[in-house]
């Protein structure tokens, strides 16, 4: 675990579960999906991150301070979520520490929830969700669930670091990416992603409230989206549109 980043446990943390990640990225898909899961499954805070690499901010809830990066959970799910955009120069130690911590809890699989921007998003009625995995066996799992594989291309951001680190440490990991707006919070994309997540995990998640509250979420999420855009620009997120030069 990185010396610069600490995870402080507040409760007994379940072992042998699944660990999910919802970090600010295009369309805030992962954060919106994570927020909905916390409310639907009544997940409670089990741990939080303490690090000088994070911006000098705390999140106040009911007058009490909380880290912007927290881990919620129940008996079989751990969910790491950030309420602030993570800058590109701190993503590595932050993601590595979270994954190392999850590994210490014997997590069976890591799943990152995020988005893939599409230019004609306004005109798309049914959003596609794509998946990539850290090894061929895990990729087979998502293929068997009927989820489309993101075959070629670039991935930029926290999920890219998660995939790379999990591949090198042989931890089964999946990234789910829902088609979304690049610059605007996209609750519909979060709902589409959660529908696919239910297929992977074999659980039920009701997304009707998420869709009903779409306008409220878009209004609330403006400021986080604005700051996330600045970080996405610095990490050259538009590289995901690039045609890869991969010679097999």
């Amino acid at each position: 675990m990185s010396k610069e980043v600490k995870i402080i446990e507040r409760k007994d943390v379940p072992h042998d579960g699944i660990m999910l990640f919802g970090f600010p990225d295009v369309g805030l898909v992962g954060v919106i999906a994570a927020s909905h899961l916390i409310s639907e499954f009544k997940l409670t805070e089990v741990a939080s991150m303490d690090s000088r690499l994070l911006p000098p901010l705390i999140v106040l809830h009911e007058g009490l301070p909380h880290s912007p990066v927290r881990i919620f959970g129940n008996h079989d799910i751990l969910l790491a979520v950030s309420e602030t955009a993570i800058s590109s120069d701190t993503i590595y130690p932050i993601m590595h520490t979270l994954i190392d911590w999850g590994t210490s809890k014997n997590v069976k699989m890591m799943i990152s929830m995020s988005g893939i921007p599409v230019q004609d998003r306004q005109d798309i009625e049914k959003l596609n969700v794509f998946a990539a995995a850290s090894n061929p066996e895990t990729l087979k799992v998502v293929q068997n669930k009927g989820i489309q594989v993101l075959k070629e291309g670039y991935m930029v951001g926290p999920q890219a670091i998660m995939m790379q680190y999990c591949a090198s440490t042989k931890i089964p990991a999946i990234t789910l990416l829902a088609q979304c707006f690049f610059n605007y919070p996209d609750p519909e994309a979060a709902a589409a992603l959660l529908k696919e997540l239910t297929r992977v995990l074999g659980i039920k998640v009701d997304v009707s409230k998420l869709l009903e509250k779409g306008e409220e979420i878009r209004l609330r999420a403006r400021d986080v989206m604005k700051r996330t855009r600045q970080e996405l620009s610095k990490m050259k997120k538009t590289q995901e549109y690039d045609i890869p030069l991969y010679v097999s």
Partner: protein
Amino acid sequence: MSNKRRRSIFEIFEEYFENLEKWTERFREALIEKPSWDHRACTMEPLSNIMVTPTEVIVTSDLPYAEENTIHVKPVSEDTIEILAKMKRKIRLDDFGITHYKGGFQTLRCQIRIPVSVDIDKMEVRFKRGIFEIRLPRKQERDI
């Protein structure tokens, strides 16, 4: 004798551009950083985006709670347009649990600078999925 190594021109350039980038960031934060709402004007600033293509400029803005028939676009200067929209209901800061600031908002308003010449009379607009889109054809440049 001094041990100080002479720096190459590339290192000097690199340092210059790094400093320039940091300075630009500080300048941007000092000038552009402001709340996304104005309690005196009772307005909230929606997110917006601009894309310049060879033939047109496409401006979009995310307008949650906007009443479609109240959305207006108007030029406010030679190179700036303003998007205004009334919201379906009044939003108060305490709706978000914020009690240390007071304010209620019923209008979305943002101003966007258009970096090239456009023909505003020929603009086309649409409102779909909560996103307001404005297409402004670029004025023809002179042939070389």
